[in-house]
């Protein structure tokens, strides 16, 4: 690869640059959208301030169910963040070039969700002001320390993987975006790192990107495996599982893929990028979603059939709660509408067209969120020893409005980060799309 020379088609470049750079920039619609999000976020932050002052008593969590929606939401965010690795890492390394137009969107999602995941976990802490203790007194034996380390590392790697391929684009944009505000040009100038389109620079960029997409794979595996271990290292029924790592990882691919499809569909329509985010691309994304759904389904089968077959005392209670008990509705909703039906219908091409796929992805992502809830809460509701002499409302977990608001705040924050990044920088890699030779991506690798 060292003697690889990139060839860019100038005409193609001009067209792509014009199309892709057109939606860039903070227009009025965007500012209104951000104002709306900010107002909603302020309300959510207010909810958090109440929680901070009064303590976690304002949540539905109590001594028995001591982890609730926050942890479920955290798992969801970490899961979604994993898509950056799936697209750029796994699929990219395998040499598929169709991912080119969506790599940056996937990285935006990865960066946004990984960053917010870190905040979500802080909102669950009883003493958030002591966060620094984790670094001062950290115990290497605690999965929380691993999680903090690996989330940080993943966030850094994802950010680099977002920023590095952006460098040539920013250099391209600097010459073309004549009406952009000064600060934006200044930012582009800083982030384009003296990019002169020098062949040696391209060479360096290729090797750096290649290293990143190799590095992101073990890091992403680690981030979600460790997150699953937050639950799996406990001996409670429902968590005490040896396949929790891969079970979570495959689940994360499903969630992340759905998030990417939703984002791509949005940019296709709102940014008028139909030409690049075209139907064949959606077909490919649909197939990939189908593929990860099948794997996830397989892990679900293992996770539920084996304990349901043996019916060990506490496993039996857990299985009963999920299949026919209080959590049955949510469980079957997430399994049937969030996994089973998408998995089946995606086999047919018409369902892999943009709009149907977008709708399916919505179901999948809502199902995925519910699934995380189902993984965390029912297990906490039936500990090994009976719950007695506690106030009745302490026994069963019911999320409160404040908890809902803080959780909504995290989602709003995630959307805000994605919105800003998608308006600040081009969402499709211009130079990669303008390459003469379609096989370049393969050659990098």
């Amino acid at each position, binding site marked *: 690869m060292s003697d690889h020379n990139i060839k860019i088609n100038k005409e193609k470049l001009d067209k792509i640059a014009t199309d892709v750079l057109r939606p860039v920039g903070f227009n009025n619609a965007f500012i209104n959208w951000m104002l709306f999000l900010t107002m909603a976020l302020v309300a959510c932050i207010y909810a958090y301030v109440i929680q901070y002052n009064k303590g976690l008593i304002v949540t539905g969590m109590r001594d028995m169910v001591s982890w609730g929606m926050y942890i479920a939401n955290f798992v969801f965010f970490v899961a979604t963040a994993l898509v950056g690795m799936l697209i750029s890492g796994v699929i990219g390394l395998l040499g598929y070039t169709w991912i080119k137009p969506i790599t940056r969107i996937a990285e935006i999602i990865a960066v946004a969700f990984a960053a917010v995941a870190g905040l979500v976990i802080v909102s669950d802490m009883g003493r958030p002001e002591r966060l620094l203790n984790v670094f001062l007194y950290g115990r*290497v034996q605690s999965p929380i320390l691993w999680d903090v*380390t690996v989330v940080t590392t993943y966030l*850094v790697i994802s950010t680099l993987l977002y920023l*590095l391929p952006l460098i040539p684009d920013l250099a391209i944009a600097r010459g073309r975006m004549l009406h952009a505000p000064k600060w934006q040009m200044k930012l582009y100038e800083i982030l384009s*790192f*003296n*990019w*002169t389109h020098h062949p040696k620079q391209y060479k360096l*960029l290729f090797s*750096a990107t290649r290293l990143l997409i190799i590095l992101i794979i073990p890091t992403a595996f680690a981030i979600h495996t460790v997150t699953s271990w937050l639950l799996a290292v406990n001996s409670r029924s429902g968590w005490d599982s040896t396949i929790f790592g891969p079970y979570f990882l495959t689940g994360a691919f499903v969630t992340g893929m759905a998030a990417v499809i939703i984002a791509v569909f949005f940019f296709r329509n709102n940014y008028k990028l139909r030409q690049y985010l075209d139907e064949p691309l959606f077909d490919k994304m649909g197939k990939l979603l189908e593929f990860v759904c099948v794997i996830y389904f397989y892990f679900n089968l293992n996770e539920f059939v084996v304990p349901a077959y043996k019916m060990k005392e506490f496993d039996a209670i857990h299985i009963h709660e999920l299949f026919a008990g209080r959590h049955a509705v949510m469980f079957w909703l997430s399994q049937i509408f969030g996994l089973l039906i998408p998995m089946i219908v995606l086999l047919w091409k018409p369902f892999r067209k943009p709009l149907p796929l977008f709708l399916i992805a919505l179901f999948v992502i809502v199902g995925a969120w519910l699934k995380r809830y189902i993984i965390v809460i029912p297990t906490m509701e039936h500990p090994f020893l009976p719950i007695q002499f506690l106030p009745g409302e302490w026994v069963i977990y019911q999320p409160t409005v404040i908890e809902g608001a803080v959780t909504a705040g995290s989602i709003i924050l995630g959307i805000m980060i994605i919105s800003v990044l998608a308006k600040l920088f081009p969402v499709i890699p211009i130079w990669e799309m303008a390459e003469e030779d379609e096989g370049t991506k393969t050659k990098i690798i």
Partner: protein
Amino acid sequence: MNKFFLTLIICVCAVLKLSAQTEWVVPAEHQGKLSPVQFTESMQQSGADIFAAQCQVCHGMPGQGNYNAMLVPSPGDPAAQKFQSNTDGAIFYKVSEGRATMPSFKSALSKADIWNVISYVRSFNASYVQETAEKIETNIPEGTLLALGLRYDEIKKMVEVSLTGSLNQVTNPVGGVGIKLEAKRYFGNLPLGDIKTTNKEGLAYFSWDGTLPGDSLGNVHLIAQVEQVEAYGEVKAEQTLPIGLVNDKPALNKERAMWNTVDKAPLWIIFGFTGAVATAWFFIFYLLFQVKRIFVLGKEPITEEEKII
């Protein structure tokens, strides 16, 4: 549902009461036991304190009838006639020994304490007239100063307790007196074997198998006491002897373990974690260095032909 169970339980209790509440028979030799001293107000006072701490939970306030009726056999109100009809000796015996739901208090309370409690309980009985015990006759002349000695007999493998009495500068062994031997433990004294009576030489022997754990040097703190305090007064000997098992058990947090502090974490986890983090961040810094090279390259002059774009 709960109400149903409650009724059921009360019925069961009632039936059980009939069958279980057999009379608590106090052996005849304990019936007539009497306090060696006349009850005083201060005795009543300290008896009230002990009662509040130890007895009230089940017996309630005397005279209030608020004892725990659910218990079988019923604890009863100490001020009630049934309770007061016990002799002082009978109450003393019942408090000391306990039965079923009534715990034994002979270790928790000293004999004086028990008499204090009895004096308090009797204060609720207007018609009670106290009798005090007559001086117990012993075979030792009055004015004798009793002393206990304690040593370990290597040959006999026994702990030897000697009782002597001195009167007018003459010291003689005292025989026929019951001795109990105890080992000091952190929260109380552990009785070692039964009560032994001193022989003619004033000696009592307690067999010793050496299995009693001592401190880190094998020292055990032994206490010998004359059993019949009423007759002989408190006579006690304490001695620390190096005859116990050496306690060489390590601290419970000595080993490397997952739950221990960082410096005692399993080595594989220390190296695994730091190794993985160091590797990842080595590459990250390497990448940042690459970015710097891109930046430096940008300062090199470049012709339009050379440019890719």
